[in-house]
């Protein structure tokens, strides 16, 4: 967790002076791919070892899919925010949603997705998936923090880097 503190809860607040990179996107599945692409490019450049890049790709994708899922039904007009910290001893990423305990109330069960007419009750944007996403994140990422903040929820993740570009 050590490397994560410095970032504070900046991602959940308005981003005033990001000294890294931040990506904001409408809660659409296709943009999760953009976030994955950016995450891997930045991780590689930050010096995350090649063997960990798949983990970064999957973890950032999961965190973003989860935020997209949370936003889609109740806050489709609000963007999801991903913040990549500037180069340091760790490669740090924060994914913020506005739904978890945030200004936009979370639905009791995620069952009211847009894909009505489902017989078996599996809703790709419902609670099952959000939980499965968290299960993947918890199993995958050692340096993981899932927090509820006034502005919503933040998932913070960190990975070691081999050669910090700046010190």
């Amino acid at each position: 967790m050590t490397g994560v503190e410095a970032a504070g809860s900046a991602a959940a607040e308005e981003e005033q002076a990001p000294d890294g990179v931040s990506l904001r996107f409408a809660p659409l599945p296709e943009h999760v791919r953009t976030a994955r692409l950016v995450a891997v490019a930045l991780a590689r450049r930050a010096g995350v070892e090649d063997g960990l890049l798949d983990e970064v790709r999957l973890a950032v994708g999961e965190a973003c899919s989860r935020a997209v899922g949370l936003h889609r039904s109740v806050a489709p007009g609000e963007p999801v925010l991903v913040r990549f910290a500037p180069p340091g001893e760790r490669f740090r990423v924060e994914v913020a949603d506005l739904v978890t305990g945030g200004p936009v109330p979370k639905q009791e069960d995620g069952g009211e997705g847009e894909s009505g007419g489902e017989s078996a009750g599996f809703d790709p944007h419902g609670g099952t998936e959000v939980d499965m996403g968290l299960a993947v994140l918890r199993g995958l990422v050692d340096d993981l923090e899932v927090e509820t903040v006034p502005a919503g929820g933040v998932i913070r993740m960190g990975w070691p880097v081999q050669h910090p570009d700046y010190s």
Partner: protein
Amino acid sequence: MDLYLSTRHEGDRTVIEVGGEIDVYTAPKLREQLVDLVNQGRYHLVVDMEAVDFLDSTGLGVLVGGLKRVRAHDGSLRLVCTQERILKIFRITGLTKVFPIHQSVEEATSATD
């Protein structure tokens, strides 16, 4: 990269070859395919994941959904997967206990347990 699907029948088994990325963007396509097959009365499915490059929890969710559907008809859903990075995702979510995972399509199509 997109999702590629190709389906063939072998007796009462149906093999679905999946390639590319199964994620929040493409998973609906796979779900549709599984739903269609069940609606057509195909209840013994083998999902060949050897050409899958990326799988996330949305993909897992669709597979779990497929399993629920075929089980409602006393069917089966078997996976073919030998890629360590894909297996890892089933392992950390405990789904290796839920899905029979096979080393080859032959093994999966001939399995009867």
